[in-house]
């Protein structure tokens, strides 16, 4: 089939005469090339979705030693780089995501009022991450938190715990340690 198409194209090119068949063949070839070119462009675009180097901070990071934390305080040191608040309470630690569950803005920790407050639509969260103000439909998410071998706190953002699914009860969502 392909041979016959090329032969007829070749024949037309040599003789210089355009028959109906050769015209359709040329047209088919043109469209084929066009489709192939477009396909290659799409593939090249798709290639950009997988960059060679990712300048993203790792999903798991060490958040210092437990004795660096004060009881009842929200630690905002890891907010800028990792998007995590680490909270020390009497019984232990938990790591909160800094993404508002309403529309994804970054709330601020207002220590004087003991709440996280989102500047976009006014959602408010308690220090535990539970929502109580504004339109946020569910609590802030928590990340997996544990102790590393060297005694530092290890936060792993690849594992998420959602309160409304009852996942905060999970052992990995909370690092028990009496103050």
């Amino acid at each position, binding site marked *: 089939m392909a041979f016959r198409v090329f032969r007829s194209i070749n024949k037309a090119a040599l003789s210089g005469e355009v028959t109906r068949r050769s015209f359709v063949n040329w047209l088919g070839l043109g469209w084929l090339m066009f489709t192939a070119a477009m396909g290659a462009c799409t593939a090249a675009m798709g290639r950009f979705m997988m960059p060679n180097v990712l300048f993203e901070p790792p999903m798991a990071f060490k958040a210092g030693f437990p004795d660096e934390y004060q009881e009842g305080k929200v630690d905002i040191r890891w*907010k*800028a*780089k990792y*998007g995590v608040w680490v909270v020390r309470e009497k019984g232990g630690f938990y790591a909160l995501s*800094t993404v508002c569950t*309403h*529309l994804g*803005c*970054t*709330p*601020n920790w*207002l220590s*004087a*009022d003991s709440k996280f*407050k*989102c*500047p*976009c*639509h*006014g959602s*408010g969260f308690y220090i535990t991450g539970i929502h*109580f*103000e*504004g*339109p946020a*439909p*569910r609590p802030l998410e928590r990340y997996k938190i544990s102790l590393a071998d060297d005694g530092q706190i290890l936060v792993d953002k690849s594992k998420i715990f959602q309160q*409304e*699914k009852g996942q905060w009860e999970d052992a990995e969502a909370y690092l028990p340690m009496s103050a």
Partner: protein
Amino acid sequence: MEAASDTLKMIINKICEPEPFFILMVLWCFASVIWADKWVKPKIAFTMMGAFFLLYLFSLTDSNFYSIATKGDNIPIIAMLFMSVYFTWLGFWRGVENDKRKAEGRPMIEEEGKEVKVLVWPHLIYIEFIVGIFCTALLVVWSIVIMAPLEEPASSAATPNPSKAPWYFLGLQEMLVYFDPWMAGVVAPSLIIVGLMAIPYLDKNPKGNGYYTIKERWFAISFFNFGYLVLWMALIFLGTVMRGPNWNFFGPFDYWDVHKQPVLNNLNLSELFFIKTLDMGLPEHWLKREALGIALTVIYLFVLPVLFDKVPFFKIGEFFKKMRIEMGAVRYYTFIFLFLTMMSLPIKMVLRWTVNLKYVVAIPEYFFNI
């Protein structure tokens, strides 16, 4: 003098609290149509517009309002306020004039000079050309004189406080305060667009085609004014002037205090019903927990439409019945559905302001909240 201006500012701040502001806007919507023949008289209308402008000049003496009004982003909003007032008046004035002419049996404004034929070139093109040059000149001057309100480089750790959408989206942003992002960000905007596109297909009434009128289309006009001037324009004003840090409400002359922390413990309908009213715990299963909210929503969307033409007082039922017969059932119920969806926004706003209602139906288990 000082005391008088302070009192005036206090009064305006009080009026601009969400509830009175909204009530006044709704009242205006009806009053402007009912008393159209009174207020559109140029003398009265221009006195009001002058007073409005003087009020604006007076407001500029306040440092808090000045900083809002002179921000590069907000200048078009101020211009828009004056323009909407002017063009609303223009439409009303012509409508009232036409109604008067019709009653007297004289030809409409639009029919005057109809026998004179004017060519597009040069008459129309010439005007468009001049207007185009003026607009370009205005934009050039604007871009030179008014600096773009640029801020520091974006950072995922620091969201500006307050974080405002572009000015034309402030109405949508206000909507997002009351609804789930899926509803206010996707469903409602799509319904707005679809609803606006549906108007020519729903509205078969030939009255008002090609001429201004108030009397013949008072319902359509007040309905449109409510949707456009109140639920879009007024919300843009509200988002610009009355929303401050942490997205709290502030009067136009209030200092934007970052530490203002009003008590806003919002509760879902299920919590209001089971915990506050019945004084018991929330049921375990979401279906049991949200049954009341789901029932109310179903009644609102599917039972209420049938009741519109059965309202026994003020001839409301008769009015809707006539409408149903004239429009046909499909058009009529589509219209009522769009109408009810539109009205769900003000209803939800008022419920939030008065009883701190968060969601009528809240099923975070399935990301469904209304």
